[in-house]
Each structure stands twice: as C-alpha cells, then as structure tokens.
C-alpha cells in the first residue's frame, strides 16, 4: 500500500460519510454522547484525585477533650502535645469559640443555635494541632488516642478516604455507563457502515473483477468508521471543555464562598482537557474501527 492508495482510502472514507449524511450524523452523535460522559467522569475523577492528595497533605488534627477537664490539666496537656515531634502549633478552641464559629458559618441562619448557648452548648473543647509534615500525622494521632482526657481524634484522612471512595465509585459506575453508551454507538456506527457497504455493492463488485485486493476494498470502510469515531471524540472534548471553562469562570465565586475549606480548587483547563482529549480520541477511534470491522466481516463478502 503506497501513499497514493492511502489518499484513495481517505478520500473514499470521507465520501462514504458525505453520501450517507443522516446515518453519519446519528453515528457521530451516539459516539459523542458516550464520550461526553467519559469526559465528565474524567474531569471529576482527575479533580477528586488532586483534591484527595491536598486534603491528605493538609496537616491539621482536631483533638476533642472530654467534659470536665480542668484548666491546669488542659495547659499541661497543651505543653505535652507541643513537645511532640512534628507539632509546630497547638491552638486551644473552647466550646464557646467553637459555637461562635459554627454560628458564623451558618450566617443569617445562626439564630438557630441560640438555644445552645452557655450550659446547653453541646460542643466539646478542642485543640487544633498543626503538624509540620504529613508523615508525622499517624504517630501523633496514635499518641493522642492514648491520652485519657482526649475523647476523640479527628483528622482529615477520613475526608480523604471519603473522597477516594467517591472517586472510585464514580469511576466504576461511570465506566459502566461509558461501556454501555460506547456499545450503543458501536452498533449505530456498524449499521452506518453496513449501509455504505450496501450502497456501494456495485462498486465493490466491479473492484473485485478489476482485481482490487480485499484490503483495498476494506480500507475505505474502516477509515469511514475511524473518521466517525474521531469526529465524535473531538466534538465531545469540545463540549466538555466548554462546560469546564464555564465552571472555571465561576469557580472564583465558589472559592469565595467555600474557599476556606481549601479543597474546591479546580485544575486548570488545559491540564484536565489533555487527559479528556487523549482518552476520548483513543476510545472514539477504537469504537469506530471495531464497529466498521464488525460490519465488514458480516456484510462485505470479498
């Protein structure tokens, strides 16, 4: 197969698509839908992965104290914790302060907590322990758990675990969905190619008499499938990119509102879209080629 033959195949591949516009459009739409879902999942999972790492590296531990710990016990505890390796700051947050903070977060709904002031405050006193490096977190947590005055240790790896679980679930459910949609797209593409094979059966017959090789006859149809798949993936990536850009443009607002949580930072557009483009091109091209091969096997008796 020389370059000229390839030009012939590509030309005829495009011609097949143009001759069969309605079915081609249906094929591109089907593969596009599947790949948009794939793109969305990738965008979410990639962001969650980064978010998870960020949370894990956020080195703050909250130690909740038991009720009835005296002030002197408290200050000696504070000193002890400060002396542990890796701890660089220990801040005491009284139950009163904690309630105020909670009220502040609720904003104008803060009055809901009015009945919990004073003796009715359900929140415990706590220490906010800041740690130099993530590798110290586990030892500090273990040590803190052994101290009788400490009721509970709260550290962000639980949040990280949740995010990890979320990412895993989205990936699993999403990939299942993508597989189903890609299957539907494959059926539609292979049907489109079948129609082109049918409409070109005269030409195929003539090609056989003139002595065209089997592959010479097959290639234009495979390229037709490839083009349909690639067109779908390019459009899908475009749609996902537009949606993500829309979200990014509004993320400054989101950050303003929720930024103190420090985890709602979306990754830059081109970084995420590179993954999405790669994945959807790969899946789109494979689905397109496989679908047309299927059709050729069944309907192109060369």
């Amino acid at each position, binding site marked *: 197969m*020389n370059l*000229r033959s390839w030009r*012939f195949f590509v030309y005829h591949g495009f011609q097949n698509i143009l001759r069969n516009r309605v079915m081609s459009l249906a094929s591109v739409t089907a593969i596009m839908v599947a790949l948009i879902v794939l793109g969305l999942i990738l965008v979410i999972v990639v962001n969650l992965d980064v978010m998870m790492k960020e949370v894990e590296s956020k080195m703050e531990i909250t130690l909740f104290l038991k009720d009835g710990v005296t002030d002197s016990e408290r200050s000696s505890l504070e000193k002890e914790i400060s002396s542990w390796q890796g701890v660089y700051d220990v801040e005491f947050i009284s139950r009163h302060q904690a309630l105020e903070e909670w009220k502040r977060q609720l904003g104008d709904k803060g009055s809901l907590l009015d009945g919990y002031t004073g003796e009715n405050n359900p929140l415990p006193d706590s220490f906010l322990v800041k740690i130099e490096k993530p590798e110290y977190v586990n030892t500090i947590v273990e040590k803190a758990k052994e101290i009788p005055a400490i009721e509970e240790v709260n550290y962000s790896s639980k949040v990280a675990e949740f995010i990890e679980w979320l990412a895993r679930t989205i990936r699993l459910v999403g990939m299942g969905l993508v597989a189903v949609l890609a299957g539907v797209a494959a059926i539609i593409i292979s049907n489109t190619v079948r129609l082109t094979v049918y409409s070109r059966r005269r030409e195929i017959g003539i090609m056989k*008499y*003139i*002595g*065209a*090789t*089997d592959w*010479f006859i097959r290639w234009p149809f495979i390229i037709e499938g490839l083009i349909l798949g690639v067109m779908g993936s390019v459009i899908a990536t475009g749609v996902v990119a537009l949606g993500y850009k829309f979200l990014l443009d509004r993320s400054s607002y989101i950050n303003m509102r929720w930024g103190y949580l420090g985890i709602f930072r979306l990754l830059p557009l081109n970084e995420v879209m590179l993954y999405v483009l790669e994945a959807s091109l790969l899946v789109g091209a494979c689905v397109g080629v496989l679908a047309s091969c299927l059709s050729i096997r069944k309907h192109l008796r060369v």
Partner: protein
Amino acid sequence: MIQFRNVTKVYPNGLCALSNVNFTIANGEFVFIVGASGAGKTTLIKLLLKEIEPTSGSIIVDDVDLSSLKRKEIPYYRRKLGVVFQDFRLLPDRTAYENVAFAMEIVGASPKEIRRRVPAVLSMVGLGSKAHAYPHQLSGGEQQRVALARALVNNPSILIADEPTGNLDPVTAMEIMKIINLINRRGTTVIMATHAKSIVNAMRKRVLQFRKGVLIKDEQEGGYFDEP
C-alpha cells in the same frame, strides 16, 4: 494458455452446469463460447474468474492451476483478465474517463500513468471526444466501449466478454465486435460468450458449443447454427 481438464460443476441445488469439459485455448486465440440459455456459458466464465470453484477437474491459466490460488492471490490473478458484461457495469456517478481511471487507481497506478494511459485507451475504443460524459449521457454502444476501455486499461493478457452485445442493436454490436477483434489482433486472448448467431457466423472464429453443460462442438473457423 487456458486449459479445462475434466471440469464438472454441480451447483448445491443439484443442477449440473458443466459436465466433464475439456479444451485448450492458446495465447492470442479468439474463441466464442456458444449455446442456448442454461448451456453453461456463464458458469464457464465464473469459473475462469474464480468466482466459483469446479466440483471436479482443474482449470489451468498460464501454467497456474486456479485451485492452487490462495484467496490473497485471486486479485492479482484477475489483473491478468479484462472483463466486460452484457450490462456494462459502469459506475453511474463517474465520467467515462473516471470509470477507466478507477481501474488503474485500484491497482495502484501513478497519476502520471493514469493521465497518459486513459485518454489513449479511450481513443482506441473510439470515445476520445466523450471522455467527460457520464454513463447516462452515453448510448448503450458507447457505454460498452467505456467498459471495454476499462477492461483493457491495465493491459490484460486475456479479455473475457460475457454477452457483450446482448443489449445492443445489430449495427452497434458489429462496431463493438470490430473493437474486440482489434484487441485480439494486438495479441490479447479473447473469450466471448454469446448466443448471437449472426456475429459468430460473420466472424469465423473458433467456436466451442455447449448443450446442457456438455461441450458438443469445438471447431476452428466455426459457425453457430440451430441445433437439430
């Protein structure tokens, strides 16, 4: 050289289309295959094109037994053959020129070769002036000329014609026969299946006559007459 050795073809439905056929055609010969409908003419041509396989016996073309050809080798074998049919089989969305060029494209000829060779072949069949007409703009005789040009453009050593004049009036048919005869005089072996008695009798070429799958006559400078 083309040899049929004890060739029998029985179709799956039990119809015996050819039974124990033997003949040899030398290079450069002009041979008519004649007989009534159902005599086995079309089966013989399909066997030569290796579209179907004989039930028994062997077909040898230029020292190659067709049954030994692998699937992959069939296209290269067919490039030795030029084929024309009763119904022309041109591509309706291409001009005469493009129909002929198509045959060169699929065997991988260069654009330069195509530009040089296609007009030459078209003028040889007398269609030089109508190169850019579409099949529906051409008469039956002109369409068959395009088909002939397409069959010849890759320089086949054998021209196979299946009822090439079947759809044409007598005058046009004779014009097509002149071209086929010209092609034969240039050295191409011609095998033509037909039931047009007037053409066979006018040409005085070798005649292989079949009846119900049996070769009943093999005659040099023969004729084709009503069977008793």
